């Protein structure tokens, strides 16, 4: 795995270093947006499906496409530049791989949303699947668009005729992404088996506090029957032991007192 020594001072490498950093930032944000889009997409067709959700989806999608187009042009131009030094090229290729994978994910999500939205027309709220979700997706949109707080009063009331327009927009965007993917493949030839990733080879666990609470919930869900009993029995044993300790302490005090 070649080390990229960014400190080598050279005009062209400095320029490409910056380009690399830019590209990395863009790809990171695309990944973030794609993740948020997926979370939102999982709510479509469920009981929280509403015009607002569709609008949120649209906004996220537009942001993702903007990012995608800029990354595409950025990376394509750099990778077609034959005078790129080897280390930089490898980094660029890594970014390229990440970009194409996230684009594929986005494509799949968009298609799914398109199809599900077609089945679940919002006019008939009875048919929406009761999935148990209660909240909306506003926080995720905020995260995706990197805005501190999305203005909640800005609830779009799309009249019904615009839904079909929305659908055609979506179709167009899907095909655009498709074209982008194919163009990328035609213009830049990245050999995927030559790309070596760096970074942690296994996903390391993040902060433990969050995980434990979530773990507790999931543990609760799994077997609410036997599990609480186990926990209750553990608490019971603890109490018993503490009681025994207390009793022995008082007894020893008594012994000391009366002897």
């Amino acid at each position: 795995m070649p080390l990229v020594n960014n400190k080598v001072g050279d005009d062209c490498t400095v320029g490409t270093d910056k380009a690399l950093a830019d590209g990395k930032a863009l790809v990171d944000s695309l990944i973030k947006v794609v993740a948020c889009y997926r979370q939102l997409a999982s709510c479509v067709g469920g009981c929280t499906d509403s015009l607002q959700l569709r609008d949120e989806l649209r906004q996220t999608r537009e942001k993702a496409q903007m990012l995608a187009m800029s990354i595409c042009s950025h990376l394509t131009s750099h990778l077609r530049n034959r005078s790129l030094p080897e280390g930089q090229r490898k980094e660029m290729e890594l970014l390229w791989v990440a970009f194409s994978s996230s684009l594929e994910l986005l494509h799949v999500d968009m298609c799914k949303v398109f199809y599900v939205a077609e089945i679940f027309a919002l006019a008939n709220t009875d048919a929406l699947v009761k999935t148990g979700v209660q909240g909306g997706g506003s926080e995720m949109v905020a995260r995706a668009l990197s805005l501190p707080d999305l203005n909640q009063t800005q609830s779009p009331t799309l009249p019904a005729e615009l839904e079909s327009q929305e659908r055609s927009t979506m179709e167009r965007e899907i095909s655009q992404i498709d074209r982008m993917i194919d163009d990328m493949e035609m213009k830049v030839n990245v050999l995927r088996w030559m790309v070596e990733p760096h970074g942690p080879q296994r996903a390391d666990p993040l902060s433990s506090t969050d995980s434990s609470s979530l773990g507790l919930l999931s543990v609760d869900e799994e077997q609410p029957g036997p599990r609480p009993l186990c926990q209750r029995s553990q608490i019971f044993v603890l109490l018993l032991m503490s009681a025994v300790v207390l009793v022995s302490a008082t007894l020893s005090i008594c012994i000391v007192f009366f002897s």
Partner: protein
Amino acid sequence: MIRICLRKVDLPLSPAPSSRIFTSRLTTQGDGVILCVSERDSSLDMTIRNTLRDHGQRYRPRMACLRKAEKVLLEMQDPKTGVRSQPQRLVITTIPHAITGEDIIAWLEDRFQLDAQEARSLGCMLVALGYIYPLQDHKRLVIKPDASLYRCQTPYFWPTQQWPVEDTDYAIYLAKRNIRKKGLLELHEQEHYNRLHKWMNHKWDFIVMQAKEQYRAAKERKKPDRVVFDCQERAYWVVHRPPPGTVSAMDYGLDRLVDPNADEGKTPDFYERIMIFTQQAIMRPRVKSSVSISALVKHCSTYKSHDPFLAKCLPSNPWVTDDVTYWTLNMPNVEIPTKMRVERWTFSFKELLSDPRGRDDFRLFLKKEFSGENLAFWEGCEDLKWGQASTMREKAEHIYKTFLARGAPRWINIDGKTMEITVKGLKHPHRYVLDPAQTHIYMLMKKDSYGRYQKSPVFKETVKKAICPEEHQFSETQLGHNAKKRRPSLSPIILRQLEQEQKAKMAANVDITQLCRFTTPVSHLAVYSGLTDFPTADASPPLPFPPHTPSCPSPISVALESTSASERRAEAGEGEGEGPPGAQAPAAGNATTSRVALSLRRLLKRGCASASMFASWSPKCHSATGTGGRIQPIGPDRPGQAPPRRIGNFFQIKVDIPPECRIYPIESEDEDEDSRAVSRGGEGAKEIICPWESLTPQNGAG
């Protein structure tokens, strides 16, 4: 107009799953995504599907059940007529829209007018397909008719559209779980994780980053929603990546070459195909519907009680209860068959013959009636038909010598015309050369022996002894226990070996007691022992051959030595590959028998040497044949003795067949002058001449 196949069931996405990473993009180039662009950009036509070169099977077959299950699920959502939902209480929070198993089953019973058992199966199917997931015991995708809770899956995770389930997504999911709590992955998940890490190494950075981002995005949601999403995702992956040992409902078999949802274009090829099809349909022979329907009705009424779908399968259906008693009771070589099985034998002769146990019984009956050669011939013909091409010639020869030739030890009675056709065909033997004779014998057995068999004491005895097992009554826990105890059955290799051993054993025990009308019943007459289907040479010849053995095989041993037949035998043996182990020795035997004629002629030309020389050579012969033993020798010492005995046979048969009665096919091939001279000299010879012997001296090499 934008023509995008999204309105159909499937959207053919980049149709390659991530496991084919190296070719995914290339094939997308090759076959293209089936999206057309609008008219304005018609130059950028994306339907680049390259059907000429792309023979990959990438389309998932249509699963019609998915659309129907979706409709059922949508009906269940109706607030008025749907399933009643209740909130699920967890330690910290409550989550709405949980439904109990019994509610689901009751609703299904009501809606579709089913009984409880069927409603339960339907509910199980909905869970197994992934439309409803259990909240407790999430790994077992069954519906329990009690108060256990379920919830409906969000449409994003439905399998209806049959989005290909990508390995990338699975890798992200596993990475996410690893982030949440390291060591949480189960064994099979860890194996998947390691495998995906190896195969998707180039995008591993992306996967880890995406997993982290998804985790952080999920954290933005409120806790109950987060829990719900986690459950949904987990349920999705239990359906699509089931743990080992479970049966997956999404196991749909092979991918298809053609997209089942795509419209087929109206090209000239398409119309031509339709034309050919309709022409053939017109030319097909037709049957009156009354006739065909009555045949169907008759078949159904006969087999109604034997069909495991329609009637109870005693003791219990192994596919349902995981208890294999049914299979062990109905094994091919079982001693005591079940009553149902015996009843099937009375339906038709074909049933009797196709069941190995029935065939055994019939063979026993025929043995008592001294007409066992018919069945043996029939079995030999079947063996020829279904056997290997390399052994066909020897088999045909062998069958001819055993059953059809004049003076054959197990001569069968077929009419002259059929015999003529058969012998003519045997000049150039192929698989179906004995078909007319086989059919004749089959009809003979069917019309004659079958009827007598059904009235015979053998059959009556079998019927009396047949067992009727009792039905199993398994409780729920016992069923679960059975499911855990499932074991794979015996390997087919072992089964085949057992089968062959049994065949050999059986062949060894058969006595030929039918004599040809041309053979005078001499005491030392050849009794072919055990040459029904290629048996091994561990034949137990009941007749006293030994006195003749020292002198008789010696010319043969001369021949063997001179022509280094042991090598040939080894060749012949090896050339047969996986033929039955016994086949090698008889093939060797056949080789030697065919060499017999040749060597005999040579010997007659040279003149006999002294007996001492022969005697000295015979042990060599034995040792030579001894080395012909094969991989799984049934009787390693036996092969050495059988060929000489059989050879001795040919010298022993004193048949006074007038030379002109011998059946000689017209020899179209060149023969050496030796054989011609010898055959003329060998008129009234004692051995049974096979029509091919003089044709090709290399018979034994197969």
